[in-house]
Protein backbone atom coordinates (compact mmCIF):
# COMPACT_ATOMS: atom_id res chain seq x y z
CA UNK A 1 0.00 0.00 0.00
CA UNK A 2 1.21 3.48 -0.64
CA UNK A 3 1.11 6.19 1.97
CA UNK A 4 -2.15 7.75 0.90
CA UNK A 5 -3.95 4.41 0.89
CA UNK A 6 -2.55 3.51 4.29
CA UNK A 7 -3.70 6.82 5.62
CA UNK A 8 -7.24 6.30 4.33
CA UNK A 9 -7.38 2.81 5.82
CA UNK A 10 -5.95 3.85 9.17
CA UNK A 11 -8.19 6.86 9.66
CA UNK A 12 -11.19 4.98 8.32
CA UNK A 13 -10.55 2.27 10.87
CA UNK A 14 -10.23 4.78 13.70
CA UNK A 15 -13.55 6.36 12.79
CA UNK A 16 -15.26 2.98 12.34
CA UNK A 17 -13.92 1.88 15.70
CA UNK A 18 -15.28 5.03 17.30
CA UNK A 19 -18.70 4.41 15.75
CA UNK A 20 -18.71 0.89 17.16
CA UNK A 21 -17.57 2.11 20.56
CA UNK A 22 -20.84 3.90 21.18
CA UNK A 23 -22.76 0.66 20.93
CA UNK A 24 -20.23 -1.44 22.81
CA UNK A 25 -19.26 0.76 25.71
CA UNK A 26 -21.34 1.20 28.84
CA UNK A 27 -23.20 4.48 29.15
CA UNK A 28 -20.61 6.09 31.38
CA UNK A 29 -17.73 5.47 29.02
CA UNK A 30 -19.57 6.41 25.86
CA UNK A 31 -20.50 9.65 27.61
CA UNK A 32 -16.86 10.22 28.42
CA UNK A 33 -15.88 9.42 24.89
CA UNK A 34 -18.19 12.10 23.52
CA UNK A 35 -16.38 14.58 25.70
CA UNK A 36 -12.99 13.17 24.80
CA UNK A 37 -13.74 13.51 21.09
CA UNK A 38 -14.51 17.20 21.52
CA UNK A 39 -11.37 17.72 23.56
CA UNK A 40 -9.39 15.71 21.01
CA UNK A 41 -10.52 18.17 18.34
CA UNK A 42 -9.08 20.89 20.56
CA UNK A 43 -5.86 18.91 20.80
CA UNK A 44 -5.78 18.28 17.05
CA UNK A 45 -6.16 21.99 16.45
CA UNK A 46 -3.30 22.59 18.81
CA UNK A 47 -1.27 19.95 17.05
CA UNK A 48 -1.53 21.78 13.73
CA UNK A 49 0.43 24.63 15.22
CA UNK A 50 2.65 22.83 17.67
CA UNK A 51 3.15 19.41 16.15
CA UNK A 52 3.33 20.35 12.49
CA UNK A 53 4.46 23.97 12.43
CA UNK A 54 6.64 23.87 15.53
CA UNK A 55 5.06 26.90 17.20
CA UNK A 56 4.44 26.48 20.91
CA UNK A 57 1.44 28.56 21.89
CA UNK A 58 0.32 29.00 25.48
CA UNK A 59 -2.82 30.81 24.49
CA UNK A 60 -5.12 28.28 22.90
CA UNK A 61 -7.68 28.62 25.67
CA UNK A 62 -8.51 31.92 24.00
CA UNK A 63 -9.38 30.21 20.72
CA UNK A 64 -11.40 27.54 22.50
CA UNK A 65 -13.22 30.26 24.40
CA UNK A 66 -13.79 32.28 21.22
CA UNK A 67 -15.78 29.44 19.74
CA UNK A 68 -17.51 28.75 23.02
CA UNK A 69 -18.60 32.34 23.65
CA UNK A 70 -19.25 33.10 20.00
CA UNK A 71 -21.78 30.29 20.03
CA UNK A 72 -22.99 30.73 23.59
CA UNK A 73 -23.55 34.47 23.55
CA UNK A 74 -25.25 34.43 20.16
CA UNK A 75 -27.70 31.83 21.44
CA UNK A 76 -28.17 33.70 24.69
CA UNK A 77 -28.59 37.23 23.40
CA UNK A 78 -29.45 36.95 19.71
CA UNK A 79 -31.60 33.85 20.10
CA UNK A 80 -29.57 32.41 17.26
CA UNK A 81 -30.39 28.93 16.02
CA UNK A 82 -27.71 26.36 16.83
CA UNK A 83 -26.58 26.26 13.20
CA UNK A 84 -26.23 30.03 13.00
CA UNK A 85 -24.54 30.01 16.41
CA UNK A 86 -21.99 27.45 15.23
CA UNK A 87 -21.22 29.64 12.25
CA UNK A 88 -20.86 32.69 14.52
CA UNK A 89 -18.64 30.68 16.86
CA UNK A 90 -16.40 29.63 13.99
CA UNK A 91 -16.23 33.14 12.56
CA UNK A 92 -15.29 34.46 16.00
CA UNK A 93 -12.50 31.91 16.21
CA UNK A 94 -11.26 32.75 12.70
CA UNK A 95 -11.19 36.46 13.45
CA UNK A 96 -9.60 36.10 16.87
CA UNK A 97 -6.95 33.67 15.68
CA UNK A 98 -6.29 35.81 12.61
CA UNK A 99 -5.70 38.93 14.68
CA UNK A 100 -3.69 37.17 17.39
CA UNK A 101 -1.69 35.30 14.75
CA UNK A 102 -0.94 38.48 12.83
CA UNK A 103 0.38 40.16 15.98
CA UNK A 104 2.02 37.25 17.77
CA UNK A 105 3.85 35.95 14.70
CA UNK A 106 6.07 38.98 14.79
CA UNK A 107 7.79 37.07 17.59
CA UNK A 108 9.30 33.59 17.76
CA UNK A 109 10.28 31.03 20.37
CA UNK A 110 9.75 31.90 23.99
CA UNK A 111 8.49 35.37 23.17
CA UNK A 112 5.76 33.75 21.05
CA UNK A 113 4.81 31.60 24.03
CA UNK A 114 4.52 34.62 26.28
CA UNK A 115 2.68 36.81 23.80
CA UNK A 116 0.06 34.13 23.19
CA UNK A 117 -0.17 33.57 26.93
CA UNK A 118 -0.69 37.28 27.52
CA UNK A 119 -3.38 37.58 24.87
CA UNK A 120 -5.17 34.59 26.32
CA UNK A 121 -4.91 36.06 29.79
CA UNK A 122 -6.29 39.35 28.51
CA UNK A 123 -9.10 37.37 26.87
CA UNK A 124 -9.86 35.59 30.12
CA UNK A 125 -10.00 38.87 31.99
CA UNK A 126 -12.18 40.35 29.27
CA UNK A 127 -14.70 37.58 29.83
CA UNK A 128 -14.72 38.55 33.50
CA UNK A 129 -14.85 42.25 32.68
CA UNK A 130 -18.00 41.81 30.66
CA UNK A 131 -19.54 39.80 33.45
CA UNK A 132 -22.86 41.47 32.80
CA UNK A 133 -23.19 39.41 29.64
CA UNK A 134 -20.93 36.45 30.26
CA UNK A 135 -21.69 35.98 33.96
CA UNK A 136 -17.92 35.78 34.36
CA UNK A 137 -16.52 32.76 36.12
CA UNK A 138 -19.99 31.36 36.83
CA UNK A 139 -20.79 31.25 33.19
CA UNK A 140 -24.19 30.43 31.85
CA UNK A 141 -26.25 27.45 30.88
CA UNK A 142 -27.43 26.85 27.34
CA UNK A 143 -30.81 25.31 27.82
CA UNK A 144 -31.84 22.04 26.24
CA UNK A 145 -34.44 23.73 24.09
CA UNK A 146 -31.71 25.91 22.58
CA UNK A 147 -29.62 22.91 21.62
CA UNK A 148 -31.84 21.30 19.03
CA UNK A 149 -29.98 21.13 15.74
CA UNK A 150 -32.07 20.21 12.69
CA UNK A 151 -34.66 18.74 15.03
CA UNK A 152 -32.10 16.57 16.82
CA UNK A 153 -31.84 17.04 20.58
CA UNK A 154 -28.11 17.26 21.21
CA UNK A 155 -28.56 16.74 24.91
CA UNK A 156 -29.37 13.09 24.31
CA UNK A 157 -26.55 10.53 24.46
CA UNK A 158 -26.76 9.21 20.90
CA UNK A 159 -27.05 12.51 19.02
CA UNK A 160 -24.45 14.04 21.28
CA UNK A 161 -22.00 11.25 20.67
CA UNK A 162 -22.43 11.28 16.94
CA UNK A 163 -22.34 15.05 16.71
CA UNK A 164 -19.01 14.90 18.52
CA UNK A 165 -17.84 12.09 16.30
CA UNK A 166 -18.81 13.89 13.11
CA UNK A 167 -16.86 16.96 14.17
CA UNK A 168 -13.94 14.78 15.13
CA UNK A 169 -14.05 12.86 11.87
CA UNK A 170 -14.16 16.03 9.80
CA UNK A 171 -11.15 17.42 11.61
CA UNK A 172 -9.27 14.13 11.47
CA UNK A 173 -9.84 13.85 7.72
CA UNK A 174 -8.83 17.47 7.24
CA UNK A 175 -5.59 16.90 9.08
CA UNK A 176 -4.89 13.56 7.40
CA UNK A 177 -5.38 15.31 4.08
CA UNK A 178 -3.32 18.30 5.15
CA UNK A 179 -0.39 16.12 6.15
CA UNK A 180 -0.09 14.88 2.57
CA UNK A 181 -0.74 18.23 0.97
CA UNK A 182 1.83 20.74 -0.20
CA UNK A 183 0.66 23.02 2.57
CA UNK A 184 1.15 20.45 5.31
CA UNK A 185 4.55 19.44 4.04
CA UNK A 186 5.57 23.07 3.95
CA UNK A 187 4.50 23.48 7.57
CA UNK A 188 6.72 20.55 8.49
CA UNK A 189 9.56 22.17 6.56
CA UNK A 190 9.05 25.35 8.58
CA UNK A 191 9.08 23.34 11.78
CA UNK A 192 12.25 21.54 10.78
CA UNK A 193 14.25 24.46 9.41
CA UNK A 194 12.53 27.75 9.00
CA UNK A 195 15.40 29.64 7.39
CA UNK A 196 15.96 26.91 4.83
CA UNK A 197 12.28 26.87 3.98
CA UNK A 198 12.35 30.63 3.52
CA UNK A 199 15.34 30.36 1.19
CA UNK A 200 13.51 27.77 -0.86
CA UNK A 201 11.06 30.54 -1.58
CA UNK A 202 8.24 29.72 0.80
CA UNK A 203 6.35 32.59 2.37
CA UNK A 204 6.92 31.64 5.98
CA UNK A 205 4.74 34.29 7.58
CA UNK A 206 1.77 33.47 5.40
CA UNK A 207 2.07 29.76 6.12
CA UNK A 208 2.42 30.35 9.84
CA UNK A 209 -0.55 32.67 9.86
CA UNK A 210 -2.61 30.08 8.00
CA UNK A 211 -1.50 27.49 10.54
CA UNK A 212 -2.54 29.72 13.45
CA UNK A 213 -5.91 30.33 11.85
CA UNK A 214 -6.54 26.65 11.08
CA UNK A 215 -5.35 25.70 14.54
CA UNK A 216 -7.35 28.43 16.24
CA UNK A 217 -10.49 27.70 14.26
CA UNK A 218 -10.33 24.00 15.02
CA UNK A 219 -9.86 24.83 18.69
CA UNK A 220 -12.76 27.25 18.42
CA UNK A 221 -14.89 24.55 16.82
CA UNK A 222 -14.13 22.36 19.81
CA UNK A 223 -15.13 25.18 22.17
CA UNK A 224 -18.38 25.77 20.30
CA UNK A 225 -19.11 22.05 20.25
CA UNK A 226 -18.41 21.79 23.95
CA UNK A 227 -20.88 24.54 24.76
CA UNK A 228 -23.50 23.15 22.41
CA UNK A 229 -23.18 19.51 23.44
CA UNK A 230 -22.74 20.00 27.16
CA UNK A 231 -24.83 23.09 27.64
CA UNK A 232 -22.43 25.33 29.48
CA UNK A 233 -20.05 28.20 28.79
CA UNK A 234 -17.84 29.62 31.51
CA UNK A 235 -14.69 31.62 32.06
CA UNK A 236 -12.72 28.71 33.46
CA UNK A 237 -12.40 27.43 29.89
CA UNK A 238 -10.58 30.62 29.01
CA UNK A 239 -8.13 30.27 31.89
CA UNK A 240 -4.52 29.31 31.49
CA UNK A 241 -5.04 25.63 32.42
CA UNK A 242 -7.01 25.17 29.24
CA UNK A 243 -4.04 26.43 27.27
CA UNK A 244 -1.75 23.91 28.89
CA UNK A 245 -4.19 21.03 28.55
CA UNK A 246 -3.99 20.61 24.75
CA UNK A 247 -0.21 20.87 24.98
CA UNK A 248 -0.21 17.95 27.39
CA UNK A 249 -2.64 15.94 25.28
CA UNK A 250 -0.48 16.44 22.21
CA UNK A 251 2.83 15.77 23.92
CA UNK A 252 1.48 12.65 25.58
CA UNK A 253 -0.15 11.32 22.45
CA UNK A 254 2.64 12.30 20.10
CA UNK A 255 3.18 15.67 18.49
CA UNK A 256 3.01 15.83 14.72
CA UNK A 257 0.96 12.67 14.34
CA UNK A 258 -2.64 12.53 13.19
CA UNK A 259 -3.98 10.23 15.88
CA UNK A 260 -1.63 11.29 18.67
CA UNK A 261 -3.96 13.99 20.00
CA UNK A 262 -6.81 11.49 20.37
CA UNK A 263 -4.57 8.99 22.10
CA UNK A 264 -3.20 11.66 24.42
CA UNK A 265 -6.66 12.94 25.31
CA UNK A 266 -7.97 9.47 26.06
CA UNK A 267 -4.91 8.67 28.12
CA UNK A 268 -4.99 11.87 30.15
CA UNK A 269 -8.74 11.72 30.70
CA UNK A 270 -8.71 8.20 32.04
CA UNK A 271 -5.52 8.72 33.97
CA UNK A 272 -7.30 11.37 36.00
CA UNK A 273 -10.66 9.64 36.04
CA UNK A 274 -9.29 6.33 37.26
CA UNK A 275 -6.67 7.60 39.64
CA UNK A 276 -9.21 9.94 41.23
CA UNK A 277 -11.10 6.88 42.42
CA UNK A 278 -8.18 5.78 44.51
CA UNK A 279 -6.80 8.99 45.84
CA UNK A 280 -7.50 12.69 46.05
CA UNK A 281 -3.98 13.21 44.92
CA UNK A 282 -4.79 12.17 41.39
CA UNK A 283 -2.93 15.12 40.03
CA UNK A 284 0.09 13.70 41.81
CA UNK A 285 -0.32 10.57 39.77
CA UNK A 286 -0.82 12.64 36.64
CA UNK A 287 2.35 14.52 37.48
CA UNK A 288 4.34 11.37 37.99
CA UNK A 289 2.98 9.93 34.77
CA UNK A 290 4.12 13.03 32.90
CA UNK A 291 7.59 12.80 34.35
CA UNK A 292 7.87 9.11 33.59
CA UNK A 293 6.62 9.63 30.06
CA UNK A 294 9.18 12.31 29.36
CA UNK A 295 11.87 10.09 30.79
CA UNK A 296 10.93 6.96 28.93
CA UNK A 297 8.67 7.92 26.02
CA UNK A 298 9.76 11.36 24.85
CA UNK A 299 7.82 11.26 21.60
CA UNK A 300 4.55 10.38 23.20
CA UNK A 301 2.50 7.27 22.84
CA UNK A 302 2.18 7.58 19.08
CA UNK A 303 5.94 7.97 19.06
CA UNK A 304 6.27 4.51 20.58
CA UNK A 305 3.85 3.13 17.99
CA UNK A 306 5.80 4.82 15.26
CA UNK A 307 8.92 2.93 16.20
CA UNK A 308 7.07 -0.22 15.19
CA UNK A 309 5.10 1.36 12.35
CA UNK A 310 7.31 3.91 10.70
CA UNK A 311 4.63 4.86 8.19
CA UNK A 312 2.25 6.20 10.83
CA UNK A 313 1.13 9.60 9.62
Amino acid at each position, binding site marked *: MNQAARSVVLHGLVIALLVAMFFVLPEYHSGNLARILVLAVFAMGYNVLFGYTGLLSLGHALFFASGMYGLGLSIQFLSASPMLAIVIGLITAVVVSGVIGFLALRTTGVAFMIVTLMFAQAGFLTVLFFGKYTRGDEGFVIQRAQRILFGVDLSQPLPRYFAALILFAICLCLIAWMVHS*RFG*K*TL*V*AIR*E*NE*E*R*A*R*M*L*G*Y*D*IQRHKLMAVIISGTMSGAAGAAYALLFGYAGASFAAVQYSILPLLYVLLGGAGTTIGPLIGTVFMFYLIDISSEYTDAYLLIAGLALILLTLFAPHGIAGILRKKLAWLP
Partner: protein
Amino acid sequence: MSIISTHGLSKHYSGLRAVNNVDFDLPDGQVRALIGPNGAGKTTFVGMLSGRIKSSAGSVSFLNTDVTDMPAHKRMSMGMAYTFQITSVFANLSVHENVALAARRAIKGAPSVVNNKVMSVLEQVYLADRTDQIAGDLSYGHQRLLEIGMGLAQSPRLFILDEPTQGLSASEVDGFIELVRVLSKDTTILLIEHNMDVVMRTAHYITVLNFGEILAEGTPAEIRSDTDVQTAYLGTT
Protein backbone atom coordinates in the same frame (compact mmCIF):
# COMPACT_ATOMS: atom_id res chain seq x y z
CA MET B 1 21.46 40.94 -20.72
CA SER B 2 22.24 41.12 -17.02
CA ILE B 3 20.44 38.75 -14.69
CA ILE B 4 21.26 40.56 -11.49
CA SER B 5 22.87 43.88 -10.80
CA THR B 6 23.43 46.19 -7.87
CA HIS B 7 23.91 49.89 -7.66
CA GLY B 8 25.65 51.49 -4.70
CA LEU B 9 24.77 48.52 -2.51
CA SER B 10 25.95 48.96 1.09
CA LYS B 11 25.55 47.35 4.46
CA HIS B 12 26.67 49.13 7.61
CA TYR B 13 26.64 47.49 11.02
CA SER B 14 26.83 50.18 13.68
CA GLY B 15 29.67 52.04 12.02
CA LEU B 16 31.31 49.02 10.42
CA ARG B 17 31.08 49.04 6.65
CA ALA B 18 30.67 45.36 5.79
CA VAL B 19 29.76 46.16 2.20
CA ASN B 20 30.26 49.61 0.77
CA ASN B 21 28.84 51.11 -2.38
CA VAL B 22 29.13 48.07 -4.62
CA ASP B 23 28.13 48.26 -8.28
CA PHE B 24 27.88 44.76 -9.57
CA ASP B 25 26.55 43.25 -12.74
CA LEU B 26 26.14 39.59 -13.63
CA PRO B 27 25.21 38.77 -17.23
CA ASP B 28 22.89 35.91 -18.06
CA GLY B 29 24.56 32.52 -18.49
CA GLN B 30 27.81 33.39 -16.82
CA VAL B 31 29.58 31.47 -14.06
CA ARG B 32 30.85 34.16 -11.76
CA ALA B 33 33.13 33.61 -8.80
CA LEU B 34 33.13 35.98 -5.89
CA ILE B 35 36.38 35.83 -3.99
CA GLY B 36 38.12 37.78 -1.33
CA PRO B 37 39.83 37.35 2.02
CA ASN B 38 37.87 36.40 5.12
CA GLY B 39 35.70 39.25 6.30
CA ALA B 40 35.69 40.88 2.88
CA GLY B 41 31.90 40.99 2.95
CA LYS B 42 31.16 38.21 0.47
CA THR B 43 28.45 36.48 2.46
CA THR B 44 26.90 39.80 3.45
CA PHE B 45 26.88 40.81 -0.21
CA VAL B 46 25.12 37.68 -1.46
CA GLY B 47 22.87 37.89 1.60
CA MET B 48 21.66 41.21 0.24
CA LEU B 49 21.31 39.76 -3.25
CA SER B 50 19.13 36.95 -1.94
CA GLY B 51 17.21 39.07 0.53
CA ARG B 52 18.38 37.36 3.69
CA ILE B 53 20.05 40.58 4.76
CA LYS B 54 18.48 43.99 4.45
CA SER B 55 20.67 46.51 2.70
CA SER B 56 21.51 49.87 4.26
CA ALA B 57 21.70 51.71 0.97
CA GLY B 58 21.70 51.10 -2.76
CA SER B 59 19.53 48.88 -4.90
CA VAL B 60 19.37 45.36 -6.26
CA SER B 61 17.81 44.55 -9.57
CA PHE B 62 16.95 40.98 -10.53
CA LEU B 63 15.66 40.08 -13.99
CA ASN B 64 15.28 43.81 -14.62
CA THR B 65 13.03 44.23 -11.60
CA ASP B 66 13.99 46.30 -8.60
CA VAL B 67 13.94 43.78 -5.76
CA THR B 68 15.63 45.92 -3.09
CA ASP B 69 12.58 45.85 -0.79
CA MET B 70 11.39 42.42 -1.78
CA PRO B 71 11.50 39.70 0.90
CA ALA B 72 13.78 36.71 0.29
CA HIS B 73 11.05 34.22 -0.48
CA LYS B 74 9.69 36.35 -3.31
CA ARG B 75 13.12 36.67 -4.88
CA MET B 76 13.47 32.89 -4.67
CA SER B 77 10.16 32.36 -6.36
CA MET B 78 11.26 34.74 -9.12
CA GLY B 79 13.99 32.25 -9.96
CA MET B 80 16.80 32.56 -7.50
CA ALA B 81 18.25 29.67 -5.52
CA TYR B 82 20.61 29.87 -2.61
CA THR B 83 22.76 27.38 -0.76
CA PHE B 84 23.99 28.12 2.72
CA GLN B 85 27.60 28.47 3.72
CA ILE B 86 26.90 26.28 6.73
CA THR B 87 25.03 23.21 5.56
CA SER B 88 21.34 23.69 6.13
CA VAL B 89 19.15 20.78 5.13
CA PHE B 90 15.98 19.40 6.73
CA ALA B 91 17.90 17.00 8.92
CA ASN B 92 14.91 14.98 10.10
CA LEU B 93 13.33 14.52 6.69
CA SER B 94 14.28 12.09 3.95
CA VAL B 95 16.62 13.01 1.13
CA HIS B 96 13.70 12.74 -1.25
CA GLU B 97 11.50 15.06 0.79
CA ASN B 98 14.32 17.60 1.07
CA VAL B 99 14.54 17.89 -2.67
CA ALA B 100 10.78 17.57 -3.12
CA LEU B 101 10.23 20.58 -0.84
CA ALA B 102 12.42 22.59 -3.15
CA ALA B 103 10.81 21.22 -6.30
CA ARG B 104 7.25 21.63 -5.10
CA ARG B 105 7.65 25.34 -4.61
CA ALA B 106 8.91 25.81 -8.15
CA ILE B 107 6.69 23.32 -9.96
CA LYS B 108 2.97 23.66 -9.60
CA GLY B 109 2.31 20.28 -11.17
CA ALA B 110 0.98 16.96 -9.93
CA PRO B 111 2.90 14.84 -7.42
CA SER B 112 4.24 12.64 -10.20
CA VAL B 113 5.74 15.63 -12.00
CA VAL B 114 7.41 16.69 -8.78
CA ASN B 115 8.63 13.16 -8.24
CA ASN B 116 10.21 13.00 -11.69
CA LYS B 117 12.01 16.23 -11.10
CA VAL B 118 13.26 15.04 -7.71
CA MET B 119 14.59 11.82 -9.16
CA SER B 120 16.39 13.53 -12.01
CA VAL B 121 17.98 16.02 -9.61
CA LEU B 122 19.08 13.25 -7.27
CA GLU B 123 20.70 11.54 -10.24
CA GLN B 124 22.56 14.72 -11.04
CA VAL B 125 23.95 15.10 -7.53
CA TYR B 126 24.82 11.43 -7.16
CA LEU B 127 22.25 10.73 -4.44
CA ALA B 128 19.76 8.63 -6.40
CA ASP B 129 20.55 5.56 -4.32
CA ARG B 130 19.87 7.35 -1.05
CA THR B 131 16.38 8.76 -1.58
CA ASP B 132 14.86 7.27 1.57
CA GLN B 133 17.72 8.05 3.90
CA ILE B 134 17.18 10.66 6.59
CA ALA B 135 19.15 13.72 5.53
CA GLY B 136 20.76 14.14 8.93
CA ASP B 137 22.31 10.68 8.61
CA LEU B 138 24.16 11.56 5.40
CA SER B 139 27.89 12.21 5.42
CA TYR B 140 28.95 15.83 5.31
CA GLY B 141 29.85 15.70 1.66
CA HIS B 142 26.54 14.15 0.74
CA GLN B 143 24.71 16.83 2.70
CA ARG B 144 26.53 19.50 0.66
CA LEU B 145 25.44 17.73 -2.48
CA LEU B 146 21.91 17.48 -1.20
CA GLU B 147 21.93 21.18 -0.58
CA ILE B 148 23.01 21.79 -4.15
CA GLY B 149 20.31 19.38 -5.27
CA MET B 150 17.72 21.45 -3.43
CA GLY B 151 18.88 24.46 -5.38
CA LEU B 152 18.77 22.57 -8.68
CA ALA B 153 15.28 21.31 -8.03
CA GLN B 154 14.03 24.88 -8.20
CA SER B 155 15.37 25.17 -11.77
CA PRO B 156 16.73 28.61 -10.91
CA ARG B 157 17.69 31.36 -13.30
CA LEU B 158 20.34 32.42 -10.83
CA PHE B 159 22.04 29.97 -8.50
CA ILE B 160 24.01 31.42 -5.61
CA LEU B 161 26.39 28.96 -3.98
CA ASP B 162 28.10 30.04 -0.77
CA GLU B 163 31.35 28.04 -0.42
CA PRO B 164 29.90 24.82 -1.80
CA THR B 165 33.16 22.84 -1.76
CA GLN B 166 34.08 23.60 1.82
CA GLY B 167 34.83 20.32 3.56
CA LEU B 168 34.48 18.16 0.46
CA SER B 169 37.05 15.49 -0.39
CA ALA B 170 39.17 15.87 -3.51
CA SER B 171 37.06 13.45 -5.53
CA GLU B 172 33.89 15.16 -4.40
CA VAL B 173 35.34 18.49 -5.49
CA ASP B 174 35.99 17.07 -8.95
CA GLY B 175 32.42 15.87 -9.08
CA PHE B 176 31.24 19.32 -8.09
CA ILE B 177 33.28 21.02 -10.81
CA GLU B 178 31.76 18.68 -13.35
CA LEU B 179 28.31 19.49 -12.00
CA VAL B 180 28.86 23.22 -12.34
CA ARG B 181 29.95 22.78 -15.93
CA VAL B 182 26.77 20.93 -16.75
CA LEU B 183 24.60 23.40 -14.89
CA SER B 184 26.15 26.42 -16.48
CA LYS B 185 24.46 25.50 -19.74
CA ASP B 186 21.04 26.49 -18.35
CA THR B 187 21.77 28.58 -15.29
CA THR B 188 23.63 31.65 -14.23
CA ILE B 189 25.86 30.81 -11.30
CA LEU B 190 27.31 33.03 -8.62
CA LEU B 191 29.91 31.19 -6.60
CA ILE B 192 31.59 32.25 -3.40
CA GLU B 193 34.66 30.12 -3.22
CA HIS B 194 37.91 29.90 -1.33
CA ASN B 195 39.35 27.03 -3.30
CA MET B 196 41.20 28.82 -6.11
CA ASP B 197 41.51 25.63 -8.07
CA VAL B 198 37.73 25.38 -8.24
CA VAL B 199 37.46 29.05 -9.13
CA MET B 200 39.99 28.86 -11.93
CA ARG B 201 38.44 25.72 -13.37
CA THR B 202 34.81 26.87 -13.32
CA ALA B 203 34.51 30.63 -13.41
CA HIS B 204 34.12 32.64 -16.59
CA TYR B 205 34.66 35.83 -14.71
CA ILE B 206 35.78 36.80 -11.22
CA THR B 207 34.87 39.59 -8.84
CA VAL B 208 37.25 40.28 -5.95
CA LEU B 209 35.87 41.91 -2.82
CA ASN B 210 38.12 43.47 -0.22
CA PHE B 211 37.02 45.47 2.83
CA GLY B 212 33.49 45.52 1.45
CA GLU B 213 34.45 47.06 -1.85
CA ILE B 214 35.17 45.67 -5.30
CA LEU B 215 38.90 45.47 -5.67
CA ALA B 216 39.05 44.01 -9.14
CA GLU B 217 36.99 42.25 -11.76
CA GLY B 218 38.11 40.23 -14.73
CA THR B 219 38.67 36.86 -16.31
CA PRO B 220 40.58 34.26 -14.34
CA ALA B 221 43.71 35.10 -16.25
CA GLU B 222 43.36 38.81 -15.62
CA ILE B 223 42.74 38.29 -11.93
CA ARG B 224 45.68 35.98 -11.66
CA SER B 225 47.94 38.69 -13.02
CA ASP B 226 46.41 41.59 -11.11
CA THR B 227 48.99 42.84 -8.67
CA ASP B 228 46.50 44.49 -6.36
CA VAL B 229 44.69 41.24 -5.94
CA GLN B 230 47.90 39.43 -5.38
CA THR B 231 48.90 41.69 -2.53
CA ALA B 232 45.49 41.83 -0.97
CA TYR B 233 44.53 38.29 -1.23
CA LEU B 234 46.45 35.81 -3.23
CA GLY B 235 49.73 36.62 -1.67
CA THR B 236 52.59 35.25 -3.70
CA THR B 237 50.87 32.17 -5.07
